[in-house]
Each structure stands twice: as structure tokens, then as C-alpha cells.
């Protein structure tokens, strides 16, 4: 599914979309993320893997400052998106999150209609001037999320009434609707069955054309299937980062090797 572009991706590793430098995250006294340096390539899928509690989700959440909602969480170091430090005091996290959207582990549509789920973001960001424009955004977001054909006749039904996989794609459509540049996905398929997972993975692969995607996943197979680059986290440290096929066939670090082959103690 993504063999050919891999080589191109590898060659065009020039301008990174997100560039993290010496990132430290503390939860109170706990040092949760230690010295993470990573470059995330634009218009590609980067997967974060690692055992539970390794800090991959925490690090993902630093990328759109979702960690700000936790009082005791403190971030040091710099994370630059297109060269701008998102932890600059001038940056408003709300504005940042419109640029760096997020999809969560459990499908979490609002208990509103499908239409309102998608339209909510554009409404609060003032992205449309008229009802017609809003309709257009809703339709195109659903189309990009591959959900249009399934829901076009029932836009006023509640989003919570759909199947799990549809709900998750609705959440992706909702994230797309505010035209972000980066989409963060925190284990988006962990609550889905294999068919729904395949549909979401197919969607991720399509979205790669227009968005920079970072996905946290527990499933190494999924990381192998959807990502171009993979980063392995362990105990808050970024152990290894590289082309996905290298990480899964010939990892350089013993810890990565042990993790991907299922030898973790």
C-alpha cells in the first residue's frame, strides 16, 4: 500500500514539519519524557510505538499542547512547527489546536447530529460566512473521510448512533473540517474491529497526501502498515526512529528489537 512513496519520502527528508529538540515533560516530580529529539516529515505518517506508559501518548499530546489541560504537567525544550516554537508564550494553545488537530483513542463524537459534529469546529473558528459554505465544508470533510456515501442521507441523525468505525471516521472528519496541517491520532483503532480498523488505515493512507499525520499505536502491525517512519519510545526516552521497514526488520537498538519481537520483560 505504501511501498513506492517510501523511497521518495526517504530521499526528500529535507524540511521537517515538526521538529522537537530536547523535549522534557514532567508530571509533578515524575520525569515522563526525557530529551526527545525528533524530526517529523511533512505529508507522511509517523508512528509512535512503545510499551504502555513509555510516554508516546504524552509526547503526542505535547505536540498540540493538550498537556496544558493538566495542571501538574510541565514541558521544557522546544517543539517547532514550521519553524515556530509552539511553547512560545505568545502562542495561544487554542489557535494551535486548530492547526494541529487530534483524534482520540475512543471515538468521541459529540452527542449531536452528524452535521453538527462536523460543523462545530468551523463554526467556532469562523471558517464559513454562510450556511452554504458551512454545508460545503461539512460535505467535503465527510468526503475526505470517506464517510459521505454512508451518511449523506442522514446528516441530522445523532453521531453517537453510528457504528464504532463510522464514529471514529466521523471524528477524523471533524478534525479535518477545521483544515489542520497536522493530525495527531492517539491509538485511533484500539476500540475498533479489524474491518473498521482497515477502513481507518486506508483513510490515514489517503490523508497522507494533504496532512502530516502522527499516530500512536499499540499494534506494531498497524504501525508497519500505515506509517512511513516509526519512532520507538521506552521509559520516556526516544530509543530509535527511522524508516518503518528498517525499524521492523532490522532495528539498531536492543530495546527496539526486544520490543518488536515480543521479548519485553
Amino acid at each position, binding site marked *: 500500500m505504501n511501498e513506492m512513496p517510501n523511497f521518495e519520502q526517504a530521499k526528500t527528508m529535507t524540511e521537517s514539519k515538526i521538529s522537537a529538540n530536547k523535549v522534557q515533560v514532567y508530571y509533578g516530580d515524575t520525569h515522563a519524557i526525557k530529551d526527545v529529539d525528533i524530526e517529523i516529515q511533512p505529508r507522511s505518517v509517523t508512528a509512535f510505538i512503545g510499551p504502555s506508559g513509555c510516554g508516546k501518548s504524552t509526547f503526542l499530546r505535547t505536540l*498540540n499542547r*493538550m498537556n496544558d*489541560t493538566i*495542571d*501538574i504537567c510541565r514541558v521544557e525544550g522546544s517543539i517547532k512547527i514550521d519553524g515556530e516554537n509552539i511553547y512560545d508564550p505568545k502562542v495561544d494553545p*487554542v*489557535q*494551535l*489546536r*486548530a492547526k494541529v*488537530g*487530534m*483524534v*482520540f483513542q*475512543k471515538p*468521541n*463524537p*459529540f*452527542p449531536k447530529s452528524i452535521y453538527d459534529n462536523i460543523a*462545530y*469546529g468551523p463554526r*467556532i*473558528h469562523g471558517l464559513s460566512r454562510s450556511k452554504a459554505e458551512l454545508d460545503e465544508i461539512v460535505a467535503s470533510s465527510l468526503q475526505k473521510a470517506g464517510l459521505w456515501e454512508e451518511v449523506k442521507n442522514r446528516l441530522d441523525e*445523532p453521531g*453517537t448512533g453510528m457504528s464504532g468505525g463510522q464514529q471514529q471516521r466521523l*471524528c477524523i472528519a*471533524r*478534525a479535518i*473540517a*477545521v483544515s489542520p496541517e497536522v493530525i495527531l491520532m492517539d491509538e485511533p483503532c484500539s476500540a475498533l474491529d479489524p474491518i473498521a480498523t482497515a477502513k481507518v488505515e486506508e483513510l490515514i493512507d489517503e490523508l497522507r497526501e494533504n496532512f502530516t499525520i502522527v499516530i500512536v499505536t499499540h499494534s506494531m502491525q498497524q504501525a508497519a502498515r500505515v506509517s512511513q517512519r516509526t519512532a520507538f519510545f521506552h521509559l520516556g526516552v526516544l530509543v530509535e526512529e527511522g524508516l518503518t521497514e528498517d525499524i521492523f526488520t532490522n532495528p539498531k537498538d536492543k530495546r527496539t528489537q526486544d520490543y518488536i519481537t515480543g521479548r519485553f520483560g
Partner: protein
Amino acid sequence: MTDTTLTPPSGKTSAPTPNKITSILELDPLTKKRNAAEARFKLYGIIAIGIGLFFLVALLWAILSNGLGAFSQTFVKVDVPLNQQQIDDAEKSVVKTSKYRAIIDDAFAKELAGANITTEMSAKDLQKLFSSGAAATVRDYALANPDKVGTTVTFELIASSRVDGYLKGRVKREDLAEDKNLDAAHLDLVDQMKSAGLLEKRFNWSFITGTDASDSRPEQAGIGASMIGSLFMMLVVLFLSLPIGVAASIYLEEFAPQNKFTDLIEVNISNLAAVPSIVFGILGLAVFIQFMHLPQSAPLVGGLVLTLMTLPTIIISTRASLKAVPPSIRDAALGIGASKMQSIFHHVLPLAMPGILTGTIIGLAQALGETAPLLLIGMVGFIASNFPDGVAAGFFSPNSAMPAQIYEWAKRADPAFYERAWGGIIVLLVFLMTMNIIAIILRRRFERRW
């Protein structure tokens, strides 16, 4: 189960030796014991519920049997000729109602004669059949309808509480020996009047709409004024405690930094919920009346005191329902760039609304039934005749509240008031039930799946 030993299996490869083969068709002793224990526990539960139900039924029966009487009232039908001359005379005298009473006496004597009832009793004695408010009824009518003066109007005058009680079975003949209000002779007359159709028992609207009456006229006492008092108090409580409580909860739950100070506030709110209501009463007395010089006995002050009392309940329940909103909804809103306030007001609050409403109604119901603090701020105003005129007066003029009124009646000596007290409780319960039904309807409308 009983056959397992504590020694671990000897080796990884050798399968553990199977236990003694038992049939699942026969129960082993332990299972039997467990089943018996379960059956016993179920029985205890059913007994507990049975006891609860028994008390509920007993309570309802007591309330209804004692209180329903208050909702009917005996009236005496009298054709009273309204004569301009007599009315003018009466209006000139100092005690106007006594002249009207004389008019009624004459009319009643005629009425008895018309029904072929003879009696030895004097007009003064006959007056005991009527409520002392009867004269006022005639007067009010005559003054309100000057065009009817000169004609004969059929009045239904309130019978005295003893006559009423006799007809309801509350007052027995033998009780009257010690009673200076009524004699056995009166009762004979009442029996005759009843068979002549002069007496009529009807639904007593004036109990629901009327005001309190003095000790000697229990038949006129109504709960209407105190109901208005309660209503205005509830309005004050609702419009103060709901916004303040919800705002405080949202701040504490969503915005407040987690530190010692917030913890202190939280502990204190929980403690406040457990503070006896009389403490709030004395606080209201000190702060609102003695310090701020707000009018005594006013529903506004009562409302303020009850607001203080209700706030902890509302804050605790609102916080609980805010906590119950899945964090995924907050994440969803924040994740697409909603501000914290947008995420709370657009998503969290609507989902927490059913819980908030429940808490508010519980708080209001508590406040509605509260008596002790009202006693301290004088919310036992004796409102005999005048309803508050206008909304502002409703808040500021002295009034009573339903539970205080019930307490007042229960205190009085006359058993007729005892009946009123039970009747008042029925009204109070209906009031509460109405509030609950409104709450349920609102909750249904807000409730959404997620």
C-alpha cells in the same frame, strides 16, 4: 473446590492430576451453603423493603385520613335580604360586623322557620353555628356589589368549626360537655338543618387560597398566603442558588488550580452541607436582619437564608455531574480548537444538565420543607387577610411559609387546626410533587445519550 491442595504442580510438562471427578448434577455442601446464604440475603432485602413500604403506607394513610378533612367545609345556606338602610346603619357603627351579624341572625331565623325547624335558642346562641367570619362575608359582598343591595341574596356562610367537625365525625356529642363553644342542643339543630338541606359540605377552596385565621376561627384558616410566601422564597432560592452554585461548581471543577486552598474550599463546602439548618437561620438573623436591616419575616430574607442552605447541595451535585461527563467529550472539543469555556458551555454543561437539575430540585425540595431557619427570621408572620399586592411586595412584605404555617397550626389548641396542619402537609406534598414532575420533564428534555 474442596479437593484442591496448596502444593504447586510438580513440573511444567506434567499435567496437574485431575481432581476427584464429581457430577455437576449434585450440589456439593459448599455450594448449598452459598445458595442458602444468597436466599437468606434476598429475604432480608425483601423484608427491609416491606418494612419501608409499610411505613410509607402508614404515613400516607395517616396524612390522608387526618388531612383530607381540611379540604371540605360545611356551609350554611341562608337567604339574606340586603337592605340599604341596615347596611348604612351597620357601616356607621364602631364594630361593623356585629350589625351584619344581626342581619344574618334575622335571615337565619327566617330560614329556620321556612324549614319548619323550631328552636328555643337565642339568636346569640344560634350565632355559634356560624363562623365568626360569616358577618364579614356578607359585608364584603354587600360593599362589593352595591347593585345587589335591595334584593335577597342566597349566601353560603361558613359553619363554625364545631359544626363542621360534627358533620365530619371529628366532634362527638360527648365531647361537647366541656365545650363552651357548642352545646348538644346545637347538634340536634344541626341534624335537623342537615335533613332540611340547609347545610352543605363542599370542597374548600378557601383552604388552598385563603389566609391564616385567628385561634377562634379555624374553619377560615387557609394555606394560600403561606403558599405564596413559599413560592416567592423558592423563586429567590432558585434564581440565586442555581447560577451561583453552577458557576462555583464550574470554576472549582474546571478552572481552579489544584492546591491546598482549593482543597480547603472543597472540604468546607462538604461540611456546609451537613450544617444544621438552624445555624443558617441564626446566621440569616444576624447578617440579613440585624446587620443589613432587611425587612423581617420577608420571603426575600427567607429565600436568602435557604439559598445559603441549598448552595452546598447544588454545588456538590453539580460537581458530581460535571465529573460524570466523560473526559473524552472535553478532549474532543479541545482537540478541534475550542477554548476551555466553549468546551464547557457547548458540550460539558448540556450533558451535565440532567444531574444539575436533579441536584437543584433536591436542594429546592429540602429548602421548601425547611422550618427551623424560618422561625429564627420570623417567617411565621400571621397573615390573616391580606395577600401581598404585587411581585415586589411578594418579596418584601411579611409572610409565612408552608412548613412554618403547618407548624403554627399544629401548635394551636383547637383540634380543627390539627386537621388543617395535616391538610397543609398534603398541599406541601403536592407542591413538592409538582416540582419533581417539572424536574423530571426538564431532565427528559435535556437527557442525551453519548
